[in-house]
């Protein structure tokens, strides 16, 4: 609320309210870690309970999962480039990399939905077994986060186009950056513990 402006800091950290928003978002991410941690714990308890339904060996194919992984990891890198351009006060560069990030994210969501549809056609829905319930809810929660992130980021891009780089738009962009990298980290855990570990086992 107080002005307390410090222009020596990067744009997104300049006002007190911005600093509070960013700290608040870090704490929110802490809560998100607990949320995903609980979902991972649920998956690890239920992941061998097939109830006569399909197993990971029957379902998972490495190709689609690799494409999803590469898309999302690359999008994290381009998100980094977007923030880099923001620090250089280059709004158009920022928007360019931001849009590329979202396209990669949309690609990820597309391939994930395709994968899910494929599973459903094979008779593997979230009502089939406890394993599939926990699988779909864990991945679905992550996928929903990515989708919400795309919608949210689109709003911010519109604001960047309208208002340019201000402390407020810079803060919003920076916070989405944090969110995007966080989802990337979650995906690395999903890739490792859901796909790789279950396919090797």
């Amino acid at each position, binding site marked *: 609320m107080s002005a307390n402006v410090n222009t020596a800091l990067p744009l997104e950290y300049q006002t007190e309210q911005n600093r509070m928003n960013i700290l608040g978002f870090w704490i929110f991410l802490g*809560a998100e870690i607990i949320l995903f941690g609980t979902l991972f714990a649920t998956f690890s308890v*239920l992941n061998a309970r097939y109830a006569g339904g399909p197993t990971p060996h029957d379902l998972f194919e490495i190709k689609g999962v690799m494409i999803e992984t590469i898309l999302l990891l690359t999008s994290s890198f381009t998100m980094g480039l977007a923030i880099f351009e923001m620090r250089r006060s280059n709004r158009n560069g920022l928007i360019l990399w931001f849009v590329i990030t979202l396209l990669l994210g949309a690609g990820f969501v597309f391939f994930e939905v395709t994968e899910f549809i494929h599973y459903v056609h094979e008779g593997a829905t979230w009502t089939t077994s406890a394993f599939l319930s926990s699988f779909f809810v864990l991945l679905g929660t992550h996928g929903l986060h990515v989708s919400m992130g795309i919608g949210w980021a689109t709003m911010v891009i519109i604001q960047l186009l309208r208002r340019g780089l201000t402390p407020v738009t810079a803060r919003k962009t920076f916070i989405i950056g944090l969110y995007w990298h966080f989802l990337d980290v979650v995906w690395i855990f999903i890739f490792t513990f859901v796909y790789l570990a279950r396919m090797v086992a």
Partner: protein
Amino acid sequence: MMSRINWHDFFIVGNPLILGSQIAILLTMIGVVAGVTYLKKWKWLWREWLTTVDHKRIGIMYILSGVLMFFRGGVDGLLMKAQTSRPELKFLDAQHYNEIFTTHGVIMILFAAMPLLIGIMNVVVPLQIGARDVAFPQLNALSFWLFFAGAMLFNISFVIGGSPDAGWTAYFPLAGKEFTPGIGNNYYAIALQIAGIGTLMTGINFVVTVLKMRTKGMGLMKMPMFTWTSFIASVIIVSAFPIFTVALALMTFDRIFGTHFFTLSAGGMDMMWVNLFWLWGHPEVYIVVLPAFGMFSEIISTFSHKQLFGYKSMVFSIVGIAALSMLVWVHHFFTMGSGPAVNSVFSITTMMIAIPTGVKMFNWLFTMRKGRIQFTTAMLWALAFVPCFIIGGVTGVMLAMGAADYQYHNTLFLVAHFHYVLIPGVVFAVFGALYYWWPKMFGHMLNEKLGKIHFWLFVIGFNVTFMPMFFLGLDGAVRRAYTFSAESGFAPLFLVSAIGAVILAAGFAVLCYNIYWSARYADRNISNDPWDARTLEWATSSPVQFYNFAKQPEVKSIDAFWYMKKHNEGLTLKEEEIEEIHMPSNSGLPFYMGVIFGIAGFLLVFEWKIAALVATVGILAGLIVRSFDYNDGFHVKVDEIKQIEKAWRGKDKGVNNHVS
């Protein structure tokens, strides 16, 4: 197969008690609407309250809702006590009794204790740290409206669709679709989810507020104890509530979308629910009790006229309790087959909690030692808390012994134990805090004479109600049983307990009358510091002006306001020190979000999935509007500040009069 919801299940009919409530609710609603219209207060209600982002007003709305819900939960309790007052009574049937003990538990913990504590946190914490508001004022309003939407959704269950009836713990498989096919438990899953999201945001808000908004000079170790306990409780909220969010979501998926997380069929695991529930549920106990401990600390210190004894050990104790609170959840189900090794570990961690709690007890006692104790109503609550809470704590250590727990579990001994923890630990604290901070909120005191009547009735009623339940439990009376036989020999103690409940209720009635009486007749000409208190909230006007402090105070020691009074520093305000103050604007968006969440939740409760999805679009619309909202608040002009400050500083019982 999913069972469909039929229209004839919509309104609960055929039970005279519920019919009476339906009529009463309808009449009350008509009365409220008519009253507000008659007094032409709609605009005022909207502008001053429903759209407010002022932490004090949000706090007052929380407290008001909490008192209302305490009444609702209390009526549930009285109905249970009436049913068990005599053997084989037919006042309530088994199903109705199941519903009532379920809603009693949920409402008292989540919709009475939580809002009362969060409400007082809202009013007091920003003042105690010398801030002008919380870190995210509009988010704070959203938290309240989500809580309120959840509470209302839960409360209509008993007239529309049917109440949840699987206990406040909602254990699977009972709470699943296979064994509870109605929609009652959908209310549980969805109403608590909506309120829980609000609570999580409150947690984040207060962590940032305390970390970032403390006034100049207030280091962490100079914070008042209530701020410390609120801060730690907020940290626990952030770390525990996401678990509940997930557990409730999985419950919703199981019940409404046919997944298999906790079901008996298709590989689900019912014990998963029990673990997830208590992984949140035990920390939740500390979320409600820690702020209450902070309230007692403030009250005892003020009315003993001494600095709190062992400040540092208090801080380490609450941090220790917070850490341990995450490590004890299995003690809620020792008998569910974890085995002796696991039970032993959790027995030990549970007993360890008694250590920091004991430290706090001794600190309160040593604070009182050699103090000039003033027996105000607030102080009486703190004094009664000590012995009552110790009974609760010691029986808790009895229950903590895994092997012995096989004897106690599922009996009224346990019920007596947790009421002896929660009522002195939370309810006494909230009552004490209301008497203590009432002048800060409303600019007039609560009547002390009525307060003492309230106190004695309530404390005596409480002990008469719950003490017999220890002995009933040891004799083998099980909890959640709607009746008992005459041959059991339980009748006399059950009757005593029922009589106690009436005394307890009479005490609460006196509080309500006191609120009414004081609002009408109490003296408005009171100073900013009527108790000769020690912390910063007393350095500013009563009731507090909307910007809290014309000039944010500078802190030099613990009990900052006491220091200011002793050294005569910072009590007066020079005109040239006044600067424009930047404040956030009101917003109708949080209210809208509460309404739309309530609608979406209601539709999902009835499993009208498409309609619920459509309502979700309304939620997204609210989020989009918020994203484009660039309202940056407004500036309060110097002249206006001067006027407001002059008004309260001019009073004959102003701030300087209390310097001793």
